[in-house]
């Protein structure tokens, strides 16, 4: 995947470019809004990582420029402004995701992955199915090779989210946002505890597709649902 990184801070910019390069993504780096717009017109990118505060023009104006040319390329906005209000502003102005600084590179990579694949994502949640693992929306039951397990609402939503993002890393922050709709960070291991219950439930019907990626998040392997 080729990305456009717009970030004026040298340390952060280099960290992002080298980190993403490490996992196989190439990137063009722009340090100002003008450079970003120039790089944007020169070639196409799968996604844009855009700092909100740039030395010349506001990151919001860069989005306006991209969106006015009819582009739908996903934009992930980075910002030191981390309140819910700032986040909503960013999303309303056309960003597809908003990540407050400080963030981890795993988080950034997982979110970029989700953004880029969103366009090619499987449709809907009706009749969610990965391999032999099936999830029934009406009864909140997971079934695998004839055996079924009853899930509570949270376990159901967790599994549904993992299944619709099968084979992709989903971070804890993404799960808190998508499954719980919480805009705040939590002090305890809410995700771990709930995930462990879900895994136990699935193991009881002979299925164990969820893998923990240390420090990064979770991944549901489709080959383990075969």
């Amino acid at each position, binding site marked *: 995947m080729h990305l456009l990184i717009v970030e004026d801070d040298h340390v952060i910019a280099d960290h992002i470019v080298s980190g993403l390069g490490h996992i196989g993504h190439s990137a063009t780096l722009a340090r100002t809004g003008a450079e970003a717009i120039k790089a944007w017109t020169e070639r196409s990118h799968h996604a844009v990582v855009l700092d909100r505060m740039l030395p010349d023009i506001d990151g919001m104006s860069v989005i306006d420029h991209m969106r006015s040319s009819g582009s739908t390329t996903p934009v992930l906005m980075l910002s030191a402004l*981390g*309140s*819910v*209000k700032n986040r*909503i502003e960013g999303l309303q102005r056309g960003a597809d995701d908003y990540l407050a600084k*400080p963030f*981890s590179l795993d988080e950034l990579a997982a979110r970029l992955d989700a953004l880029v694949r969103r366009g090619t994502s499987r449709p809907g949640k009706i009749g969610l199915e990965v391999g032999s693992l099936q999830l029934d929306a009406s009864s909140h039951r997971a079934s695998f090779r004839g055996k079924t397990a009853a899930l*509570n*609402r*949270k376990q159901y939503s967790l599994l549904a989210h993992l299944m619709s993002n099968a084979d992709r890393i989903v971070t804890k922050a993404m799960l808190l946002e998508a499954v*719980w*709709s*919480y*805009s*705040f*960070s*939590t*002090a*305890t*291991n*809410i995700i*771990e*505890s*709930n995930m*462990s*219950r879900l895994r136990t439930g699935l193991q009881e019907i002979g299925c164990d597709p969820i893998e923990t990626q240390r*420090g990064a998040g979770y991944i549901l392997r489709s080959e383990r649902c075969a």
Partner: protein
Amino acid sequence: MRLISDALARPARLGRLAIQFGLAFAIAMIAIGVIGFGLADHWVSSRIDQSLTYHADKYVAKVEGDPSAEMHLQAAILEWQHRKVLSERTYILFDRNDRRIAGRLDIRPPPAGFSYVHFTGGGRHVEEGRALAKRLPRGGLFVVVQHSEAAEGLHAILPWAVLAICLVALVLGVSATFLFAKLTAERLSETQHIAAAIAAGDLSRRIPMDRLDGMFAEQGESLNQMLDHMEELVRAQQLFSSNLAHDLRTPLMRLRSLLETASRDDQVTFPSLLERAERECTSIINIFDALLRLAEIETGQHPTAMAQVSLRPLLEDIADTMEPVINDCGGTLAVRQLDDVTITGDPDLINQLMINLIENVATHTPRGTNVTLALESGESGAMITVCDDGPGLATGDFVRITKPFERGSAASARTGSGLGLAIASAIARFHRGSLELVDASPGLEVRVRIPANDDQNASVRGGMPRAS
């Protein structure tokens, strides 16, 4: 700061207010003068007209129906002239050809009825008189003229009198206002000195109340109350900052130790040290996230999605979410009672309130502590209870612990942001509710009260606007 104290030290200016007040007073006096003189003038005029009617009727009535009325009147006028040497009234008789046949006043015959006539009195001096003319049956004209020195004098002095009254009123009005403003300023000057001292940084100063009365006392009292509140806020702010600095020292110290160890040790322990360092970073970030959140709620900057929130499903969801967490800490989470209550609120904030309270039990009580959750509907709204059977709090901790960075004195580990209860409390206040800590012996009970379906939710916030 300098500008403020300079402005306060200057004596109060009285000018404009005194002049405005004096002008208003003078205008009022002019109005009263004009009305008064108008009435007096009207009264004098009507008295003159009455007198004219009386005297004209007296003469004309005597000759009513008499064919030689002119002759009789001529005789009566002559007789009157002999009798009266000095009078402000005089009679004139004209025949049918408008020729004066009796009377001394040289005027042209006026129209019948009341009118003003002009004549030369004495020498060349033209004077004005009021006349009543009555037409006689044979064509003659009987005229009574009254020349009132009093009425004329009144007209002459009217503008001067009004002017004099205006000037006196203006002077009196301005000096009364000036005096009043000076007295007010004297009383306020002490307040100004105190304000200057406070602006210079001495928040302990208060306005002395012993010499103040009436509205000054009321004003002084409300200012003192405001100062009490401000001093409290400033002190809380100072405490907050020092607590924050202290709380950050621990994870920063740990981070530094880890980095130092990593730089000394061999490469084998490197990855685990770095991972631990990252965890310390996360805990510092968490403190800042929580701080930001607290500030957002308390200053009312949280973008609120105020909606009708049905608390029962929300709490069921919380119980589902937190049960595994409490289980992992060796305890149980039980739901005692869940009534149906709908409140007007922000579901995201209510979620955080509940998560914070239950996480508080998970992080600050020994393993195996059980949690009981309840939602009761009452007259005043909803009451949410989170009760644990842990060791509870020391007596002195109950008030302190809802403040930022305060932990129970028995809490061993300094885990968490130290802001959980402060945020929960701010969320309760945001919803015009309250958060109360009760000794459940054993354990701690947290009671959150939120008014049900409060109409005025959106405009009034629990948070206080930040002074800029």
